[in-house]
């Protein structure tokens, strides 16, 4: 439903009559409309172009937006031709009328003038979601990215160029709240009233359905989504135009990449994940992985696995992930698993190097723990396992033995072992950890691990 209306009133300069004569001249319709939709905030920048027929002299343009979620303080109109001859003197929000703005335009031209009207509205949103299909050997994955655009703005935007912004924008006020204010800028000395109920959705379903059916019969060629960086954000431009009636959502394919190499990464960290091993699917947003042209917006990924030759699928799990810059690693948490086992066992515990204070109380000692860690891959694919151990103290020394793969100190009290395991294989390694307590900490010297 069209809720935004523009009425152009021309005030014919009448010198002899005291009151200006108001003529209703034209009701210009939108020529083009562009939507730039944000997902970090409920906000859309709308840019529409309309051709106004102006007369020499004073013109008044009335813009009304009842039952929409437009922020009136964001309204701006700019002439696209004869800019030097057209002066937009002011924008007035008349008293005791809601959802109405009146532009006073001094025109030095007579005739059609293209203008651009921009404003921010609430109610349009988009989100990204993904579908991944692993090959049977889980070495590669087909990754499809989708965007879903939803229109709850109260306004039908027909044939709109649709653009999406990926990024976190700083805003002070919710557009929806600004849209519901009785007075666009509030009143002096008054705190804005609490937000009212959302705009009523009086959409006629049957009409909207007709629109959608009409769209469904149109030739279905997948549209391209063009991506480019701007400031700290990414701009996705959907090819052509879109019509999204109020109340409807639309899903569009953003990208489709086949054979993205993936690493089956398993992590074990008792303090964080408990006793289970957690499965991750890891890849990198770079060229090697057939990605890396743009960052990947955060969203939910549902992972499936191909089973058999018939193209059947098995559902592996789902993971939401954060925004992934170009060249950054992606780690998708698919939840705890039982087919990979990490078993740390304390094999021996002893204390030594006791120190005593003047009253012969214990003032320092060392604790020595011998751990054995067994890692079992029961799956028939290659896996990579990361095991983190936290020591709760920074005064420690370690002595590794066995096949512990690569080993690194993460921070002052955490170390990480990284192992690669063949299908259906087991690795065992051990370490002896000495921790220093009490005054023995004074004897500890840092050795770069």
């Amino acid at each position, binding site marked *: 439903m069209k809720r935004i209306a523009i009425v152009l009133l021309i005030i014919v300069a009448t010198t002899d009559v005291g009151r200006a004569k108001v003529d209703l001249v034209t009701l210009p319709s939108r020529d083009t409309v562009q939507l730039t939709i*944000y997902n*970090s905030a409920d*906000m859309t*920048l709308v*840019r529409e172009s309309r051709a106004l027929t102006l007369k020499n002299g004073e013109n008044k343009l009335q813009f009304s937006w009842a039952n929409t979620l437009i922020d009136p*303080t964001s309204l701006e109109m700019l002439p696209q031709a004869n800019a030097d001859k057209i002066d937009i003197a*002011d*924008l*007035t*929000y*008349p*008293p*005791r009328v809601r959802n109405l703005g009146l532009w006073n335009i001094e025109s030095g031209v007579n005739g059609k003038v293209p203008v651009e009207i*921009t404003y*921010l509205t609430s109610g349009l949103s988009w989100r990204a979601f993904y579908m991944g299909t692993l090959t049977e050997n889980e070495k590669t994955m087909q990754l499809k990215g989708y965007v879903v655009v939803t229109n709850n703005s109260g306004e039908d935007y027909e044939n709109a160029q649709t*653009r999406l*912004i990926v*990024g*976190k*924008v*700083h*805003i*002070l006020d919710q557009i929806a709240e600004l849209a519901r204010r009785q*007075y*666009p*800028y*509030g*009143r*002096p*000395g008054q705190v804005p009233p609490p937000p009212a109920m959302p705009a009523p959705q009086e959409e006629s379903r049957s009409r909207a359905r007709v629109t959608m059916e009409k769209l469904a019969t149109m030739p279905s060629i997948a549209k391209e989504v063009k991506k480019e*960086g*701007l*400031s*700290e*954000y990414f*701009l996705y*431009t959907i090819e052509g135009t879109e019509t999204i009636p109020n109340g409807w959502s639309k899903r569009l394919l953003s990208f489709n990449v086949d054979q993205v190499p993936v690493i089956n990464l398993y992590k074990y960290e008792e303090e964080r994940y408990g006793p289970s091993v957690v499965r991750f699917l890891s890849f990198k947003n*770079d060229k090697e992985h057939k990605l890396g042209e743009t*960052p990947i917006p*955060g969203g939910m990924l549902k992972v499936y696995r191909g089973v058999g030759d018939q193209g059947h699928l098995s559902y592996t799990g789902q993971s*939401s992930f*954060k925004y992934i*810059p*170009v*060249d*950054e690693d992606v780690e998708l*948490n698919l939840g705890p698993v039982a087919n990979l086992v990490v078993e740390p066992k304390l094999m021996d515990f002893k204390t030594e190097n006791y120190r005593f*204070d*003047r*009253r012969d109380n214990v003032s320092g000692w060392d604790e020595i723990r011998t751990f054995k860690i067994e890692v079992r891959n029961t799956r028939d694919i290659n896996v990579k396992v990361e095991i983190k151990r936290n020591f709760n103290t*920074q*005064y420690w020394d370690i002595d590794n033995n066995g096949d512990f793969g690569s080993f690194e*100190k993460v*921070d*002052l009290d955490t170390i990480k072992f990284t192992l690669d395991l063949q299908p259906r294989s087991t690795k065992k390694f051990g370490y002896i950890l000495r921790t220093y307590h009490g*005054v023995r*900490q*004074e004897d*500890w010297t*840092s050795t770069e691990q």
Partner: protein
Amino acid sequence: MNSKRNTIMAMVLVVGVAAIAEARIKLVALPERAATVIRLDNPRATLIEEERVLTLQEGLNKVDFSWKGVSIDADSIRLRTLDHPDKVTLLSVSYPPNEAALVWDISSDSDYAETVRISYLLSNIDRLITYKAVADKAETFVDLKSYLVLRNFSGEDFDKARVLLDYGEAFEQGIAHEETKQMLFLKSPKVPITKVWKFDAAKLPWDPEKLENQNVGIPVSYRIVNETKSSLGEFSLWGGKARLFQDDGHESTIFLGEDVTGLVPVGEKMELYIGDSRDIVVTQRKMQDTRVVTHKNNRGDVVLYDTNEQITAKIENFKDSSAMLTMIQHIPGQWDMESCNMKYEKKDSNTLEFEIQLPARTQAGPAVKELKMTYHRRHLRPGREPQTPVRR
């Protein structure tokens, strides 16, 4: 004066007063309001100045000024005669009981049609300032516009008035009660900007890996200097809400973000926080924090100690453009730096500021720099350590 409304100001000239009557007589000509000025140079109060022509008679004239439905600070009302200032004298001002009114006693040496200027402070009429800035695609300058938003909820309709700020041109405007008007009053094209990324270790999480599925955004701001070089610098820029846009290179713009600025005097900087960068990632870790006991009491308790601490911060730039990151680190109490692989400026006793130039990402991957600083904190007393700033 708008007679349609009942929230009006009335001025009544009482002629030929011989004695004070019990009921005050309020009649005679209702002088029309001529030139009106709405002066908005003081953000705390709005001054109205209006001119009216009083038909004065020789002798003592009583002029009654009353108002209804508007809030006027009675103590602020001033009267000034403009045509015959030496011959027309204001003798006294009296306030009738329980009335929003005052009575001027004016002495005139002849019959005059005297123009007077009445000034007063009127409540519930004010102005806001808003900014709109459109940056170029390369983010080197902005086209800055500022709007005056006049809000009139005073109860009074102004058919025509000169609206004045402390600078810039006056606007000829009428404004009705409950009306809001937005007028462009400053247009400065090509104002240079500096883009600033800032990581403050006391405000942002240290290790993004420890956050489940959350990006740590590095705040990004535009810095504008109010100086002549920026085609500004003539006057202070008032505080208000600023909305920033950017030219997208397709004859359109995107909305970058919004912030509110305070008053920016000439020569000072305006910093507008637009949004967060998720393409610069900082991973900060404490790699060492050991205690070195320097003294024990005779019971063997530690009473004084030093520390050896090491902090590393890996900075990765995933952007395809270079960036200058301002990194702020905090070390509380007494300390000395043993080694630091980057230059810093000591902003105060416990704040260090690093300006880190990050090249753009290359084919090989993100541009990576690592800060490593090893320092000692001195003379710490157990239980009385200086407050460590917020972490993680």
